[in-house]
């Protein structure tokens, strides 16, 4: 893992690490190389991907609207609201 790649991953995930944290994370990525070696030692040439561990099919239901919560309920945990809207900083200068 190159530091530039880590910086890109930070940006994509909206995180900003300190230099000492970056060293720790790079060390972690280095250790994970042994995970890759373990997996590559297993022949998966003719093996299908397993997304679900058990044979569970996608569940469908009637497309019926239900009102479970009010707007006020949903905004109870919001950091900042105004007039029933979630408040964020100005996005258009």
């Amino acid at each position, binding site marked *: 893992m190159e530091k530039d790649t880590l910086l890109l*991953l930070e940006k994509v995930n909206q*995180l900003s690490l300190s230099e000492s944290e970056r060293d720790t994370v790079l060390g972690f990525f280095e250790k994970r190389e042994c995970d890759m070696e373990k997996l590559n030692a297993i022949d998966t040439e003719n093996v299908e991907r397993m997304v*679900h*561990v058990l044979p569970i099919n996608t569940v469908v239901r009637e497309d019926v609207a239900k009102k479970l919560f009010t707007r006020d309920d949903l905004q109870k945990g919001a950091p900042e609201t105004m007039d029933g809207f*979630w408040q964020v900083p100005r996005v258009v200068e």
Partner: protein
Amino acid sequence: MKKIMLDQMILTDCCPTNAGSKMLDGYTGLFNATVVEKLKEAGYEIAGKLPVGEFAIDLVGESCFAGADKASAAAKTLENDTVMAHIALDVNGAPRRVAAQNGLVFAKPTYGTVSRFGMIPVACSGECVGVMARNAADCREVLCTIVGKDEKDGTMHTDEVCKNAAAAAAPVKKVAVLKMPTDANDKIEATKAKMAANGIEICEIDAGVIASANAAWNMLMCAELCNNVSRYDGVKYGYRTKNYKNLDELYTNSRTEAFGLTLKTAILYGSDVLSTKNYMAKYDKAMRVRRVIVEAFAGIFADFDAVLLPAVSKMAYTEKDSAFEENAYTAPASVTGLPAVVTNGVQLIGPAFSDGALLALAEALEKEGK
């Protein structure tokens, strides 16, 4: 009234659920998780919530934002016999490690037999709601209460299958012992002796591809976690930084200030695993290895009723230990969705829907003494 504790991954509408993270400090859910409703309907009292490591991915709860002294709080609470059991979300094996190191029993059920509706989601393809208690009988009683089909969880088996799994009691007659290095080998030897005393045939086998389960689970878990925690952005709910001038800074500073380093590391690793460059080599490969491991277990269960393996590498951790290595013992059940029961400091894994049979074996071993 029998008292039950919940971990901080389980939503309740009466008290906050923080997932062990500053991001959700003070957050209260709008509804009760299905397991909570089932327990209340059955007459149990929800006695409170116990701390959990940040998003339940650490060793034994040490990454909880409220402080490392909160680690293993479940074990301390269960020392008090006024509480019958503790319900915990098993994402990366932490509750199994806590049980193993503290002489408790933990049942991780077959994936899809206990509703995950109302859990803070982390690694949805493998995480399970389990029960920790002082003995296997209490574990079974509570597990039988919380199993069952829930229309709100799309990854569940039929009601009959779920209930039969928890109640199953077919005797375990033949056990395979997975050869895995551990400092807690005395626990394995003691369990083998107790099994022999119960007339159970024991045979040692090599771990083979199962030894690679943690490599696959580290990738799958981090990839799923990376997506699941992307919702925490400081806008809709949870922590918001005071230090921002624009929307980008609000997102970045909120997440940076609220998340701990273990979680940030897992997010970054998961994002790397899912990147265009690595998707096929890492994520896709891990999903194929997952099938190889499931098939390896199926091969073992053609000849054996259960597998005995360590739950931990040692009976106490230091700061140098990491869940990403230690989950070598817990990842086999996480990545395959198979039921696992920790008892007497060791772990039993059985075929899908053999939860009750594993608990019956744990009860039989308890009778042989600690």
